[in-house]
């Protein structure tokens, strides 16, 4: 019964039974198969480069590499569960790095600069949501359009230049540690934990599943469908703003071009790998995170085993298609 609920992604409500079965529920069958896939990847790359792959330094590298993607992918998971899609996140990341760099320049306050970057991201999300809900534009088209527009804005405000950030706080965030763990990874864990609680233990989260499952049903049940949609895109924009902060901290600069290397593609891939149905109503945060881990290990492993960059791109694209194919097959089986 409960495993059936997990099969389709909507987690059963908590508080049903003992801790062990609750853990099993949390994992779910789809997530177990993701863990298996992850183990296979680790075995392959670990087997090919046992000298480096398992080094603490490399594992930290993987963590560093997925921090930004992780924030984007788990936010994207929520967007997709709500029945939408946000292709503009990569461009928002770029815009956010530029705004943060400018913010540091203007105010010299890292806190204000970071808040500014996140607020710009949220505003971008608001713009997306209004185009989609009020304008009635299909989400794919709307965010494809704003992707280009936001990128343009980033170039305009930065004059097309990379803006360096000279501030120790950002160096600390980008490379420093707190309690022995890298701060970027801690930011990722905090975001994931917050999203996990949101989607699993709050009314808002349940209702996001509902509007993604069937907006007509949700509206007739009394949910404010538009309100939720607006909220979800703002959340996605703000998350992209935060991801921009991580990127700016790591590179020590705001670059309008940053985030244009297929971040949105990877975020969507991770979410779909994690069990999201593009039709909405289905998916989990844990799944999205596992999808990110798989991508991170794949990226890292391909670099370690010297797969040429262009082939890496092909592999990533193929992975997205494969993930959708598998999801389709499952949907057909469990119809």
């Amino acid at each position, binding site marked *: *019964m*409960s495993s*059936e*609920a997990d099969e*389709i*992604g*909507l987690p*059963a*409500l*908590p*508080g*049903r039974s003992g801790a062990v079965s609750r853990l099993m529920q949390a994992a779910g069958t789809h997530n177990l198969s993701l863990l298996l896939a992850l183990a296979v990847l680790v075995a392959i790359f670990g087997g090919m480069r046992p000298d480096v792959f398992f080094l603490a330094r490399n594992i930290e590298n993987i963590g560093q590499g997925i921090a930004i993607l992780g924030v984007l992918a788990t936010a994207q998971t929520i967007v997709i569960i709500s029945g939408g899609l946000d292709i503009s996140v990569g461009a928002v990341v770029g815009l956010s790095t530029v705004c943060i760099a400018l913010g540091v320049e203007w105010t010299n306050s890292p806190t204000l600069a970071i808040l500014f970057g996140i607020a710009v991201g949220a505003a971008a999300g608001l713009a997306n949501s209004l185009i989609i809900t009020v304008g009635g534009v299909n989400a794919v088209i709307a965010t494809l359009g704003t992707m280009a527009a936001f990128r343009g804005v980033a170039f305009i405000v930065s004059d097309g230049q990379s803006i360096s950030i000279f501030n120790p706080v950002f160096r600390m965030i980008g490379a420093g540690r707190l309690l022995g763990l890298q701060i970027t990874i801690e930011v990722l864990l905090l975001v994931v934990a917050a999203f996990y609680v949101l989607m699993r*233990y*709050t*009314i*808002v989260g*349940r*209702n996001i*599943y*509902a509007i993604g*499952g*069937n907006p*007509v*049903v*949700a*509206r*007739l*049940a*009394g*949910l*404010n469908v538009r309100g939720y949609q607006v909220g979800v895109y703002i959340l996605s924009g703000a998350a992209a703003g935060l991801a921009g902060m991580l990127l700016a901290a790591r590179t020590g600069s705001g670059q309008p071009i940053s985030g244009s290397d297929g971040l949105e593609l990877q975020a969507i891939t991770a979410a779909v790998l994690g069990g999201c149905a593009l039709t909405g*109503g*289905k998916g989990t945060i844990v799944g999205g995170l596992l999808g990110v881990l798989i991508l991170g290990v794949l990226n890292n492993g391909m670099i370690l085993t010297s797969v040429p960059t262009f082939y890496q791109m092909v592999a990533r694209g193929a992975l997205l298609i494969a993930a959708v194919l598998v999801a389709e097959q499952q949907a057909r089986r469990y119809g």
Partner: protein
Amino acid sequence: MSDPADLAAPAGAPLLALRNIAKRFGVVQALSGVTLELRAGEVLALVGENGAGKSTLMRILEGAHQPDEGEVLIDGRRHAFRSPSHAHAAGVRVIHQEPDIAPDLSVAENMFIGDLRPAAGIFLDRRDLLRRTHALLKRFRLEHVISPWAPAGTLGAAHRQILEIMRALRSGVRILSLDEPTSSLTEEESQRLFAIVRQMRAEGVGIIYISHRMHEVRALADSIAVLRDGHLVAQRPAGELDDAAVLQLMVGRPITNLFQGARRAPGEVLLDVRGLCNTRLRDVSFTLRAGEVVGLGGLVGAGRTEVARAVFGADRLSAGEVRMAGRRLVLRSPADAIAAGIGLAPEDRKGQALLLLASVQDNIVLSVPQLISRLGLLRGGAARDIAQQQVRRLRIRTPGIAQIVSKLSGGNQQKVVLGRWLARQPRVLILDEPTRGIDVGAKAEIYRLIGDLVAQGMGVLVISSEMPELLGLCDRILVMAAGRIVADLDRASANEQRILDLAMQEQP
């Protein structure tokens, strides 16, 4: 597929024989040891309670499910259809309870999907398609009602059902199964369908007819098969079983009076609707009092569902107002209506009422967020208790509240929709075709439930195409035609003929 040993069809073998069919879904034994025969030119009525296994048996017949045990024989030859398309090729068609259509394709394209003929090599031959569609529509005398090029998504439930039936008809069937085909049809449309069924019987088609309505079974069936809890408890000529006997076989206990309960004098006016107008409604006014059941009668398309949607804030109004207990409501969305104490169980449960991917529990608690959370955080136990209470109260047949709702039988899905509103306890409840697809036993339960609710002071507005239901259940009946209310009949002056006359009179 077929066993070589069976290749020669035994003389006198029935058209269709199901032998010892068993099917289990997880913990649910949906069918066990079902053996059934159907002859050419016979209409077999298959009856049973919600969840008895009727639809499952039909899905096995058409290869949508594989049986755990047993076999399907056609003309004495064994067949094991791997998918419905294999069954279609062999002349076996099942028309389902909830028709699946492609909403953006036209009626014509939907009808001939899989058999669209090209003109000039690649283009769709629209003229040929139109000709064939028109011929079929004419057979149902619907050529002036349904436009061949209308997107199928714009059709109402009744016309979708008809579309689905025509789709099967156009590809010569030998064995046709109709799973509750009339649940969304009006009396007149049903009669049209019966004529088609009789015509096909005369042409030698074997027909399995599933229905919860005894008068339809009486009108059509040559023989009756009764399923109870997945077992076939009887298959006999229709003449040998009277209604009481069929009901008793179905539920295993005698059914008494459907409509019961003492009527009480209605109380204060709860709902006061004045001059509603929109694209489908013209100057609709009525009142609903506490403790009162008011019915909306009329033909499909008369605007009954539109009244419900307008009062519920689901559609925009161009004029008019809705008052609740004297207070004028601002209805921008259903959320406003719900906050004011109005509930609506829509007729289209798949498209408008249920989250098909979600569990029974999540569907039931969807409209009571305040009862299952504190400060926005879920209290899992509360949700579970509410869901379990409704499952018990409505006797929903499900292995548990975590079951995905799309896996319940049709009638039990309908009960889940009702459960959502019973959990919410609105002051005014609007029920659009509340017993569609619900078996007699459950119907009686729902009628009793409505009686209890009004006794507690709720006002209930019922939309129904089933005359006995309207007449038996309602204190007053509002008859609609072409977007207006043409009559307000009290219990004493309402009868079937009068309602029909009124409903037809304003039709163009």
